[in-house]
């Protein structure tokens, strides 16, 4: 299998154990969405997959290979990108420089320039802002920039943490359109953690519901949306 | 815990060193609390060279009554606190009855009460502050005080026809003391001090201070400065096109200063506790120095330190190897004694009776005595 998989991951911060054995799998070209109430360990799961937190137990597999212990830098070189929640652009760098940073794994300046041109084709919104510090962008533009930066090296898997957080509805739409476009064009695998479950599930091929550190439900996006238990988990109702 | 053990073992290793056997105990030991590290270590090195030279000579001639002189050097780290502990250590551990005090008036004055209280003789070959020996009868100075030098400097300014001039001085004990001495005498003579500019030690940039001193293009500027500071200043003044007659004190009179400042030092004049270099004693000393160290650049005050060793030796020979004996014998030993630096007779304040203040001038890259 070409996609990415996390098996029985146990992880946490210091004394806190957040994940008690969570498993997710995303096949190649799949958009997989992980939803769940706040504090259920969604972000932790994503960070464990990427190696920002070393899982205490469990394994992370990429294209069938065990990459649990690889450092984030190395995972980037394998073609895995991670877009964190919140502070996900270099605010003091310009938009162009942010893109260049995304191109770090590329060997030549020339390739970086070509990659920027290609990315700008796909993200026309960023074109006019190239020379501005990324800190001046609006929340939605930052999210797009973060996506574009990850896209610089044409990764096979993109892990996204709460892409819609704090965005205006129009921008949420924009970001998700972009995700769909990338997925459609290069069949990139997406693993998205999302609070905004309805939006995410509407584009996801499959979804997981994470609750209290374990994956509870796995189903297709549309099914999950109509699942009574999902509503219950969210609103305790 | 393992790490802690490591640290402990390092300390105990050091402790082992400290109980290592003493060096030959038969010698006549003299303490020397010199600056071997810290800000004025540059002077301390020079003093040490000359002291070593004198000791070598005396020991070659059989020492004191057959016993060899041994100097116990103690680093005073150029600060008063360590001066005090260095002196304290020399007195209590090495039990020396006489010691050579630290350079720098404030360092010396911090340590002097300790010597006085312990009734141990302490001599200064470079402390020029007027009050240096006030701590008590065990404290001696074999170099003339600043007030005499200040007077001479004021007189020099008058002789050269300068009635109005600004004064720059290094903002430390020596500079302030000499500045006061100069200003008082100069005003008394009717001169006008146009500006007084203190400057900090060890800076690298004195341009604006120099600019301010040179504001009205004075014919002369009094600059009471040290070696390094002086070199930097003369160089920077030269570069800025300051054309004036520099009048300095003794601390700048060093071959090193001329070496550092190059042609910018040309023509700089100053006063210094005179050492008549034409004397037989001085020439012998200079030759001996050259033979031992390979150059004839006598370190500043090195000659006084050299004399200090001989003077102390004489006092020990006369009064015996006890503090009280040395203290009592010193004035007699010094009376009329002609050292390298001239007549070493003490006055009633245990300073120098005869203060021959000479004038130096830089000519052709060499420091010479100024001849009228």
């Amino acid at each position, binding site marked *: 299998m070409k996609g990415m998989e996390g098996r029985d991951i146990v992880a946490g911060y*210091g004394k806190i154990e957040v994940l008690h054995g969570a498993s997710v799998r995303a096949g190649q070209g799949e958009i997989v969405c992980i939803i769940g109430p706040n504090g259920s360990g969604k972000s932790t799961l994503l960070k464990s997959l990427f190696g920002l937190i070393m899982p205490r137990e469990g394994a992370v597999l990429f294209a069938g290979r065990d990459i649990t212990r690889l450092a984030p830098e190395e995972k980037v070189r394998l073609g895995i990108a991670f877009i964190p929640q919140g502070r996900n652009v270099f605010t003091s760098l310009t938009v162009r420089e942010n893109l260049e940073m995304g191109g770090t794994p590329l060997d030549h300046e020339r390739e970086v320039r070509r990659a920027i041109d290609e990315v700008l084709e796909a993200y026309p919104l960023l074109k006019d802002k190239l020379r501005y510090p990324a800190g001046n962008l609006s929340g939605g533009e930052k999210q797009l920039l973060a996506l574009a930066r990850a896209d610089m090296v044409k990764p096979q898997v993109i892990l996204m943490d709460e892409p819609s957080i704090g965005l205006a509805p129009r921008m949420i739409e924009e970001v998700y359109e972009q995700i769909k476009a990338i997925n459609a064009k290069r069949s990139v695998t997406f693993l998205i953690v999302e609070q905004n479950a309805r939006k995410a599930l509407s584009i996801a091929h499959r979804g997981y519901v994470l609750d209290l550190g374990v994956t509870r439900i796995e189903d297709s996006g549309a099914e999950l949306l109509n699942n009574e238990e999902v509503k219950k988990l969210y609103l305790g109702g | 815990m393992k*790490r*802690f053990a*490591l*640290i402990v073992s*390092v*300390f105990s290793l*050091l*402790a082992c*060193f*400290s*109980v*290592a*056997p*003493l*060096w030959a105990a038969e010698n006549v030991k003299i303490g020397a609390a010199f600056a*071997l*590290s*810290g800000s004025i*270590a540059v002077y301390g*090195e020079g003093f*040490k060279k000359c002291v070593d030279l004198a000791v070598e000579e005396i020991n070659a001639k059989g020492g004191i009554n057959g016993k060899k002189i*041994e*100097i*116990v*050097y*103690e*680093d005073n*780290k150029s*600060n*008063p*606190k360590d001066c*005090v*502990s*260095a002196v*304290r*250590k020399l*007195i*209590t*551990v090495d039990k020396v009855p006489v010691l050579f005090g630290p350079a720098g*008036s*404030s360092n010396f*004055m*911090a340590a*002097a*009460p300790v010597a006085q209280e*312990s009734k141990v003789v302490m001599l200064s070959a470079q402390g020029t*502050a007027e*009050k240096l020996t*006030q*701590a008590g009868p065990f404290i001696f100075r074999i170099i003339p005080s600043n007030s005499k030098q200040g007077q001479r400097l004021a007189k020099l300014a008058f002789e050269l026809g300068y009635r109005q001039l600004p004064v720059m001085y290094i*903002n*430390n*004990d020596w*500079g*302030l*003391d000499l500045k006061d001495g100069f200003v008082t005498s100069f005003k008394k003579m009717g001169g006008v001090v146009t500006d007084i500019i*203190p400057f900090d030690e060890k800076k690298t940039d004195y341009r604006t201070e120099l600019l301010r001193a040179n504001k009205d293009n004075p014919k002369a500027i009094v600059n009471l400065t040290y070696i390094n500071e002086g070199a930097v200043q003369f160089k920077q003044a030269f570069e800025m096109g300051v054309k004036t007659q520099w009048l300095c004190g003794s601390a700048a009179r060093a071959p090193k200063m001329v070496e550092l400042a190059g042609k910018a030092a040309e023509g700089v004049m100053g006063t210094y506790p005179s050492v008549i270099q034409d004397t037989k004693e001085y020439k012998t000393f200079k030759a001996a120095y050259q033979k031992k160290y390979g150059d004839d650049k006598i370190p500043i005050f090195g000659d006084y330190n050299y004399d200090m060793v001989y003077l102390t030796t004489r006092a020990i020979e006369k009064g015996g190897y006890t503090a009280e004996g040395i203290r009592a014998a010193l004035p007699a030993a010094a009376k009329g004694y002609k050292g390298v630096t001239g007549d070493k007779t003490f006055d009633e304040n245990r300073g120098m009776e005869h203060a021959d203040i000479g004038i130096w001038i830089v000519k052709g890259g060499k420091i010479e005595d100024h001849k009228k």
Partner: protein
Amino acid sequence: MDLVLHLAIVVAIYSIFALSLNIEVGYTGLFNFGHVAFFAIGAYVSALLSLQDATFSLALIAGIACAGVGGLLIGLPALKLQGDYFGIATLGFAEIVRMLLQNQVAWTKGPMGLPGIPRPEIFSWHFDTLPAYLLLTLGAAVLTFLVIGFLTLSPFGRVLKAIRDDETAAAVLGKNPFAYKMEAFVIGSAFAGLAGVLWAHFITFISPGDFTLTETILVLLIVVLGGKGTLWGPVVGAAVLIFFQESVRFLRLPPEWSGILGPLQQMIFGLLLVILMIFRPEGLIREKGKETIDRD
């Protein structure tokens, strides 16, 4: 023997000095880089008064009080700053204090310093010999130790430690961080003043050159070496550091080496510091409960 007494006095005075810094650095988390200023204020005020024939008791109280007031005046602006900024601001203030001592020649005799400071006399007890002076400084050190110990173990000290650990959390529990930091700063300054007074009357000669950044660094090293935030740390640090520095004097090395001995000793000192920081950054005495702390 005199050397031992002498060093014991120095250790006692530096213990007071370090204890006073520890209440700021160790207990309240204030990285004061200008602590020597208050030492200097204490020393100068007391010395100047004594030279005007004031009694020692008066000079002592005035020295401590002026150092405390100095702390208040410097703390007012400086405590508005955080972390490194506070450190560099206090460093700047200390340099300004030193420059005042150096340049206000009319008051302080400037770089000439103040010689002949009398040895103390309290109620006709003379402290003019080393053992007597040791008694006096030991008394003062024990007093300082007890007062600072009492303070740090009291509810007041609890608030200081809370502010050190988490200023915001302390504030939302109703503790005014600025006020408490100010109190700690003033207390620290006053005790540094006490150390300064004792120093001046012990050495009997002071000049502005005694109160440089080097002294601040030394006392900071004592606190860190001994173990900051512990009661015994500063005392142990002072003893170890001063005896270590002095012990090098007893290395019986050939006289020809003396020229390189000074720098060599300082090199070893620097190296030991580095090694200590790598292997035991919490100092010789460890504050309990520290190993679990990851936020700083």
